[in-house]
């Protein structure tokens, strides 16, 4: 009883350590599941790998100079497949949460005196971010081995930041779906349906200039495109984010523009799902 502020300070630091304890425990559980059932990890690497190797070979003999900047198709595709890997990995973020809802494990968590129920969401974000980045890294290494290049030091940082932004946004979306949809069948259906069209309607496989204008519009609005272009720029060489990376039908978008859109998207999605999470976890 020395001063009224002391106990509240002690309580705050206690609160933080409790929050860390529960978040670490929940994250550890997800990683234990992954270690014992590594098929998601392997499939998440295998699928983009097949894309990279098969699709990359498809246009190996295409005429030189077909792509803007005289890039080889393999190098062009690399950026697209890296983003696709991170995207489809993060799209699965909601699945463990959905299974916990369905099998009642979530109730076990909700009966516990969690310091904050955001630790449940936080654990999912940490887990899926680590997993998606790991998968993307595996693809980047393979692309390098295939001779499709490797971004320099600054480029690597840009790749990482871009992937993180995309992963956060997609994770938010997937977690939102995991609480909004009635069961895992529906969630898997949405993931299945969303996956490929979003890949095709982006600049992952072909530049905007190859597309008819309606598809060009779609691709120029697709969040994947805003992640692909900065990464492609990082692979292309000297990094300058103030350059125009995307000549969209509605106007030119610079590297900073792409990143800005990704930030806005991430923030927007988290704000959008927050009321839903609060309601479901209250």
């Amino acid at each position, binding site marked *: 009883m020395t001063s009224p502020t002391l106990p509240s300070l002690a309580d705050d630091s206690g609160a933080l350590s409790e929050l860390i304890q*529960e978040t670490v425990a*929940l994250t550890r559980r997800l990683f234990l*599941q992954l270690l014992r059932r590594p098929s998601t990890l392997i499939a998440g690497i295998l699928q983009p790998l097949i894309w990279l190797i098969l699709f990359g070979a498809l246009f190996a003999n295409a005429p030189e100079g077909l792509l803007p900047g005289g890039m080889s198709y393999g190098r062009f595709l690399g950026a697209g497949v890296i983003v696709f890997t991170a995207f489809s990995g993060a799209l699965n973020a909601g699945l463990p949460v959905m299974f916990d*809802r369905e099998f009642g494990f979530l109730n076990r*968590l909700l009966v516990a*005196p969690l310091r904050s129920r955001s630790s449940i969401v936080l654990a999912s974000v940490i887990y899926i971010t680590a997993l998606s980045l790991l998968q993307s890294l595996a693809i980047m290494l393979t692309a390098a081995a295939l001779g499709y290049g490797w971004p320099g030091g600054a480029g690597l940082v840009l790749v990482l930041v871009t992937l993180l932004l995309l992963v956060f946004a997609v994770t938010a979306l997937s977690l939102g779906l995991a609480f909004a949809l009635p069961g895992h069948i529906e969630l898997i259906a949405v993931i299945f349906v969303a996956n490929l069209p979003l890949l095709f309607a982006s600049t992952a496989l072909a530049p905007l200039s190859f597309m008819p204008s309606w598809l060009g519009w779609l691709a120029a609005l697709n969040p994947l495109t805003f992640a692909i272009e900065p990464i492609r720029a990082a692979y292309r060489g000297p990094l300058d984010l103030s350059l125009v990376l995307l000549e969209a039908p509605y106007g030119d978008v610079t590297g900073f523009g792409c990143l800005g859109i990704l930030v806005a998207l991430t923030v927007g999605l988290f704000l959008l799902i927050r009321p839903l999470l609060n309601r479901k976890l209250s």
Partner: protein
Amino acid sequence: MPLIELRHLHKAYGSVVALEDLNLEVPEACLYGLLGPNGAGKTSTLRILATLLEPDSGSVQVAGIDALKQPRAVRRHLGYVAQEVAIDKILTGRELLQLQGDLYHLQRADRDQRMADLIELLAMGDWVDRRCGTYSGGMRRRLDLAAGLLHRPRLLVLDEPTVGLDIESRSAIWDLLRQLVSQGTSVLLSSHYLEEVEALADRMAIIDSGRVIAEGTPDGLKQQLGGDRVTLRVREFSDAAEADRVSALLRPLDGVRQVVVNRAQGFSLNLVIDGEAVINSVRQCLDHQGVPVFALAQSRPSLDDVYLQATGRTLMDAELALAGQRDLKQEKRQSMR
């Protein structure tokens, strides 16, 4: 002050009313049984107590804390063992307990010591290091009990703790619950097994159609009913006409009440008698009229009689009647977040 105080609880799922003005007081350091058929509202009551479900109206106090305003404070005091055990099949029992310990913010050394004690107490042995997916029903329930007890709750809430278990696991759980209560933990359990509540509970409430219809000690409730139960069989298989005739003979006798023809039991007669002497006058009466007696059994009132008296039907009949009305899929959806 009672440990648990539920006042005027109402809860409806759409048009289905689960709780209707339910009131309950559970004293401290007591093993309290909630008896009622499946679908009577027991699980809803316990889920509200465990802060998983919010009532439409009413108040919930646990250890003097308003559970609706301060659910987190209540969660610290409470261990909840749900009916359908949700475990992570891919984790070992030990990993699940470690997770549970961290969710309750136990210190590592304390947690590990407590886990060792509980593993010993529940005789889990090597099983604790195997994956939960390989557990039998009994082992799963033991793990769930260990998880519920890990943080030394003041109150342990169990929803149908022995449903579907073998006799050995059941008696092990009964012993554990008795031991807990003797060490000062309060236990609230729901059951639709009469013998479970009879064997365990210090006090009990009968729940039917979402409200408490009788409350007290099991012995007190039985004594309140008064009288002995008599089952009379005139012959092994009688018929309706004979049963009605004999019932008309017995009804006017002094000290005989509630003469009922039990069609399901070969038209035997169930009656209640007040005082030991009445059984002799029943025998004399039958003798005078030349009615044979195949069997005549007399017993103290049971909890089933208490239930019958309170609801007008036996627990078994209530189970059967409700079994057809329940939409289990719907209920699962409701319990999902």
